[in-house]
Structures are given as structure tokens and as C-alpha cells.
């Protein structure tokens, strides 16, 4: 096997990207004009744009999840944070706040949720899965209570600013893509161009050892959950403005699972100590490409989840070192 081929096969990036390409090829063969991109209503329009566009909330949540998982934690409350953010937005709109203030209130709500999670995990030392489960369970109820503050019978709204951020466009490109790219860059700089990334990975790898080395593990973990809360809040702003309504019971249901999945497809380990931001985005794209492909395939909806499970299983199978070794030895036996 040539060296470059070996390098590609052994790279952790190759399998998720390959899966993404394969899903797109299959979708293209099922639906003839799948790759077509046109300009409609002043923005790019097509299945490929849809995949990028719809992957944004999951990708944002997954980026936060990647940071938290890097500390050997997990954040199950992301969907509930989105529900709370949505309720806060509609409540403040009905109260007549300026919409720029509402945007900051929404992000502040997410940060507050992240601080709560971070406090439980780093100060009280509650296991992350339990600590964030509390807000996961309570959050949607809190959202419903916030909706009660204005009566809650008709939670739909119009907001030029928030809708521009979610469904608007700048020079043909959907605004949410541009904003998400900016957030990704900012996060990447924060994680990779400051010591924070290194600290998070060291805390995730071995909290006790990094504490001895002078890294304040508690503070690092706290910051990770706050980041996750902030990114979830941004996803919440996009999702709420997208549908012009707050629906705390069912908005972003199971998004925590998709986010964890995106991190894992991207090569992250739940054992912590590693953050792969770019690959996490690829993971989110794989999930969304799969969803979009299933929607346009014309298959009955009963198959949606089974198809998803099978594709995820195969990606993870190919990523497993043991499975790859087995395939590798099979191939080399053939060659010799």
C-alpha cells in the first residue's frame, strides 16, 4: 500500500467524510436534481444548501458538546436550554423589549443555564450525566412556566432582527451560515490559539494530574459548561426565529443525542481529553445529510430511524480500530 494511501486510510478524518460523500451520492441517485442549486427569493436554494442550513443548530450544540466531552463531561440539557431560550424570546417580545436586548437576554439565559450546570459539576462534584439531567428534565417545564407569564395561548411572533439572523441572507448566503462560521472561527481561536484547549484536554485526560500541574480543573470545567450553554442558546435563537414560535414541549427534542453522535462520528471519545471542532461539524453534516436524504427518498417515515441507526453503526464500525485492523489484514492477505 502506498504511503499516502495508508495515511489516508489511517486518518480519523477519512471515514466521516467518506460517509458524507456516500450519503450525498446515494441521495443524488435517488433524486435526479439533488445537486441543483438555484437562486430563489434572493438566496441560494437547493438540497445541498438545505443540509448546511439545517445542520447549523445541531452543529452549534455539538461544538459545545465537544468542549464539554473534552473535559470528560456530558451535557444532556442542551435541548432544554433551547426550550428555555425560545420561551424567554417570546416572553420578552410580548413584553415589548427592543429586539437587540432580547437577543442578549436569550444568550444570557443560555449562559445562566450553563453556569448552573457548571456549578453542579465543578463545585458540587455531581457526575455530569446526572447534573445535566436535572436541567434536561426541568428545563422544558421552566420553558412552559415562562410561557405562562404572558398567557401562553398564542406563542407566535414576528421579529425582523431575529428572523434575519435565522432565515435571512447576506449576498445570497443564508445569514445563519455566516454567523455560524464566525462562531466556529471564534471558538477555534479560543480553543486552539489560547491555552484553554490544552487545559480542557488535560483536565479531561487526567483531572488530578493537571490540578497538580497548576491547572484549575474546577474553573476549566465550569467554563466548558458555560460555553455549551452559550452555543445552545445561539442554536435556540436560530430555531425559535426559524418557526416564529416557542414550543418548549417539543422544540429540539433529542438534539442532545444528535450532538453527542456528531462528536463521536467526528472521532471524539466520551472518555474525554480530545476536542475535534472541525470533525464535529462534519459529524453534524453527516447526520443532517442523512435526514435530508431520507426525507426526499420517498420512503415511509417508519424507516427514518432504522436508516439512521444503520448508517451511524457503519460509520462507527469503520472508525473502530479493531474493525479496521481486521479489514486491513483481510485486504493485505488478498494482496499477497
Amino acid at each position, binding site marked *: 500500500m502506498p504511503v499516502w494511501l495508508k495515511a489516508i486510510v489511517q486518518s480519523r478524518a477519512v471515514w466521516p467524510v467518506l460517509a458524507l460523500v456516500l450519503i450525498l451520492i446515494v441521495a443524488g441517485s435517488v433524486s435526479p436534481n439533488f445537486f441543483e442549486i438555484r437562486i430563489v427569493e434572493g438566496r441560494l436554494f437547493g438540497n445541498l444548501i438545505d443540509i448546511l442550513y439545517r445542520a447549523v443548530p445541531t452543529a452549534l450544540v455539538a461544538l459545545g458538546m465537544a468542549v464539554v466531552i473534552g473535559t470528560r463531561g456530558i451535557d444532556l440539557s442542551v435541548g432544554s436550554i433551547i426550550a428555555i431560550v425560545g420561551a424567554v424570546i417570546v416572553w420578552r417580545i410580548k413584553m415589548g423589549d427592543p429586539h437587540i436586548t432580547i437577543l442578549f437576554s436569550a444568550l444570557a439565559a443560555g449562559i445562566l443555564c450553563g453556569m448552573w450546570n457548571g456549578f453542579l459539576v465543578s463545585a458540587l462534584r455531581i457526575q455530569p450525566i446526572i447534573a445535566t439531567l436535572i436541567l434536561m428534565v426541568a428545563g422544558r417545564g421552566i420553558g412552559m412556566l415562562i410561557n405562562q407569564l404572558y398567557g401562553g395561548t398564542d406563542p407566535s411572533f414576528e421579529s425582523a432582527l431575529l428572523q434575519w439572523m435565522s432565515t435571512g441572507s447576506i449576498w445570497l448566503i443564508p445569514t445563519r451560515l455566516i454567523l455560524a462560521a464566525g462562531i466556529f472561527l471564534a471558538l477555534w481561536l479560543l480553543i486552539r490559539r489560547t491555552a484553554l484547549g490544552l487545559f480542557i484536554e488535560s483536565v479531561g485526560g487526567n483531572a488530578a494530574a493537571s490540578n497538580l500541574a497548576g491547572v484549575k480543573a474546577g474553573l476549566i470545567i465550569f467554563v466548558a459548561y458555560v460555553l455549551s450553554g452559550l452555543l445552545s442558546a445561539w442554536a435556540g435563537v436560530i430555531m425559535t426565529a426559524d418557526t416564529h414560535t416557542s*414550543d418548549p414541549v417539543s422544540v429540539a427534542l433529542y438534539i442532545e443525542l444528535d450532538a453527542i453522535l456528531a462528536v463521536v462520528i467526528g472521532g471524539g471519545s466520551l472518555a474525554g481529553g480530545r476536542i475535534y471542532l472541525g470533525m464535529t461539524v462534519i459529524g453534524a453534516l453527516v447526520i443532517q445529510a442523512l435526514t435530508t436524504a431520507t426525507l426526499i427518498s420517498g420512503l415511509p417515515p*417508519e424507516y427514518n430511524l432504522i436508516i439512521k441507526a444503520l448508517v451511524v453503526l457503519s460509520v462507527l464500525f469503520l472508525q473502530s480500530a479493531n474493525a479496521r485492523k481486521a479489514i486491513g489484514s483481510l485486504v493485505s492477505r488478498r494482496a499477497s
Partner: protein
Amino acid sequence: MKAKYALAGAALAASALMTTAAWAETIGFSQVGSEGDWRPAFSANMQESAKEYGIDLKFANAQGKQEEQLRAVRAFIAQGVDAIIIAPVVVTGWDQVLREAKDAEIPVFLVDRDVDVEDKSLYVTRISADFNLEGKLAGAWLAAASKGTCKVVELQGTTGSAPAIERKKGFEAVIDQFPAMEIVQTQSGDFTTEGGKKVMEAFIKSTNNLEGICASFAHNDNMQLGAIQAMKEAGLKPGEDVLMVSVDYVPAIKDALAAGEANASVELRSAVGKFIYPVVLDYIKNPTELDKWIVIPSDLHTAN
């Protein structure tokens, strides 16, 4: 003297009150919880219309838990109410408590959802809307509006849920009567605005901007509202280019109907006290065998 008369008057009034209280029927109502928009409106209507019928209603909110509901029903039995109305949280696990009510000779009425019991004589009847009928009504409206020629895209509710299954069946039963009507695309939007929007976006691409599509049938209004947004963002005119029919009649769809972006919505009534209480009161006065399901008629609202 005056004081004496006043006292006597008060005593008389009090005894009159007690008589009416003794005559008023006492009914226990165990509600599922307070989720969504529809159920709180349903609870409020049951409490308000109880007053109109002079019923002493004992209201218990089970907060979505069956054990809470069983406890409430047993409390009603212990209080010796005249009748019990249950909106069941789940369909199973009712045999024992219903038998206890039957032994105490307290009639039980079901509203909203069904229960699964072997002995159907354990409850008097179920009084509720019919999801199947809602689907039929939507189908009938569409058949008339499109004059029997229509390619439909369908936004299904949560896969496997009772309203999704029955609304689909009812709708199909009607459009199957018309050879030129068919469902060309169907997907689940999970009863949410978000889901409806995503699915409609995919439909718009897979059908080349809904070319040849004459209608969108959604199993609830929320999904239809999402579909309306997706169509507007793609430069289409919902309500004009494509007929929009859905179920629930929530406040937001009323606005859409007024704006001409939706065409018809089948109402899932929350003001059902006036359908439920007469049946219960008649039965208390004169217990006769009733049908096991009394259907509350559905209503359909259009733009004009």
C-alpha cells in the same frame, strides 16, 4: 326582635343552600395534566360548564402520571361521588380500579383517550372526538375544493401515534373514492412547527417547487404553520398555489386563515363540557345501556 328574624332568615337560607347542595350531582373528574395549549383549555371548559349545569365538580390533575390518576379515582370512590369522568393518561392498567368503582356502583365515563380493558361493562361510555372523522372531514373538504382532482403532500404526526394513524386512515378513506386524488409524498413532521417546516422544505426540492401539487394536508396546525413558512421562503404562495388543510384550529392558524395562507382547519374542540355533562347527568337519573363510544362532532373552519 329584628336580630331574631335576621337569624332565622340566615338559618333558612343556609338550609336552602344545603338542600341545593344535596341535590347537586357530585362528579369527580381526573384530568391527564396541563400539557400543550389544548388541554388547559379543555380543563377550564370542564370546570366552567360544570357550574352552568349546577354540578359540584371535583377536579384532579394527574400531572401526566397514572399512579396519581389511580389515587384520584380511588379518592372519588371513597367520597361516594355520583359519577367519575376520566381522561386516561395511558390505555392500560385500568381493570382493577374500574372494578372497584363498579363495586361501589359509581358509573365511570371516559373522555378524550380510550382505555384497554377486557370487560367493557366496567365503564359506561367514552365521549370524545373521532380522529378518523377529522381526517375524513379534511379529505371531504379537499375533494370538494379541488373538484376531485388533486395530488396531495401529507405531513404526518408522530409515527405510530393514534391521531396520526387515524387522521391518515380517515383522509385516505375519502380520497380513495376519487380516482384522480392521491398522496404523492408523505413524511412525519412529529406534530411540530419545526418538523413541518423541515419536511416541506424537502418536499419543495423533491417535487421541483411543488410542481403539480395541489394540496398540503397536515395532521395538525403546527406542522402546517411550518409548511406555510417553508413555502413562503421558497417564493411560493400557500393558500393560492397550494390548498392548505389541517387539524386543530389553534389561534395561529386562525391568523393564517384570515391572511389567506391556509384554507381550512378541522377544529379539535376544547369546549366539550356541553357534550359530556348532559350524557353523564341523564345516565345518573336514568341508567340505561349506552353505545361504548359517543362521538363529539368535529367542525371545519375555512377562510371565509
